[in-house]
């Protein structure tokens, strides 16, 4: 394909998806501005927000990138089936997501202590991220694969879809479940 054709094909394929991502990001932003009220009760919560959101992107972005390459190479079929590669990739992303959430809570707490701040108790911060990441994992894995398979079957290049899908789902559900986790922990703690 000529450079001009490549330019327009990327622009045309990516723009609608990015527009949806933008809406997702804005919804997530509205939830974030609502979460600002709970920051006083749980010092350290705001520090965990970018780390938590970034981790969603990392874990599921890697899963998506792997699936996209697998589809291109013909190693994976665009449907839910017992494919060893698919199952292994899904299990690995689950282990990574839950494992890293414990690291996020502990690391945020530890760094804030080192900086001489007064974060919320360790078990509270870890509890919030852990609950949020378990809930997010289910939605992310099912949602990401469904959208990637559907996109691929309708002739879209999965490479252009992975990042935006992961960010949109991760931002929207990540923030929503973080908010929910804060509510749950508020009830448990009080």
């Amino acid at each position, binding site marked *: 394909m000529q450079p001009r054709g490549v*330019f327009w094909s990327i622009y045309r394929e990516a723009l609608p998806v990015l527009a949806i991502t*933008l809406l997702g990001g804005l919804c997530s932003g509205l939830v974030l501005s609502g979460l600002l009220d709970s920051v006083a009760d749980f010092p350290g919560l705001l520090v965990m927000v*970018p780390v938590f959101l*970034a981790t969603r*992107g990392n874990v599921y972005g890697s899963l998506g990138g792997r699936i996209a390459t697998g589809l291109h190479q013909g190693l994976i079929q665009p449907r839910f089936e017992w494919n060893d590669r698919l199952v292994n*990739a899904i299990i690995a992303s689950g282990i*990574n997501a839950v494992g890293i959430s414990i*690291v996020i809570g502990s690391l945020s707490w530890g760094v804030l202590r080192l900086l001489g701040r007064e974060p919320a108790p360790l078990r509270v911060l870890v509890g919030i991220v852990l609950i949020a990441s378990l809930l997010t994992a289910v939605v992310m894995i099912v949602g990401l694969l469904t959208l990637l398979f559907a996109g691929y079957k309708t002739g879209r290049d999965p490479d252009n879809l992975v*990042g935006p899908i992961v*960010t949109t789902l991760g931002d929207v559900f990540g923030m929503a479940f973080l908010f929910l986790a804060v509510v749950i922990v508020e009830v448990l703690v009080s």
Partner: protein
Amino acid sequence: MALLTDAELGSWGTGHIVRTMFPLLVVLCGIVLWAGITLEDAGDLLDRYGLLAVMVPAMIGMGGNLGSILSARLSTRLHLGTTTFDPTDRLLWANVAAIFALAATIFTALAVVVWLIGRLVGTTLTLGQLLWISLASGLSVAAIAVVASVVATYGSYRLGIDPDDTTIPIVTNVVDVFGMLVFLAVSRWVLVG
């Protein structure tokens, strides 16, 4: 279907994926923590201008998206053997130009939509201020995303690591941190002086 052995699964084995990814995830966590602390420190700015909090996830998410689109394309082209990283490769430049065109379009839209939300909730930020904040930080973030994508993909390739495991995490996290720093710095500069 018979189960594949670990050797047959190769880079698709659960153990392999976790061992490759987890240490990287921990390192990236440490890097993005910096963005978190920057956000916490900007609490006063967010309290004064609530619209900025609404912009934060879209702002940093979009930088990561642009970087991911480029990295995913570069790494699949590597797998298929069609990328050369030659600076005279006009297809590479077409990819980069498309990223900037997308950034200009999307960050203009971000400013307009946030301005409309602001009109509804009655804040005092003008469309001009929002356009300045959105486009100045957005285009800087796009530039960072492009450099990070090319460097990370080429770096992984030279080190013999599958770019699918590394580039998108590296690019999105680098862009998250710089996106947050640039966005908050530009906002402070435009709004506070």
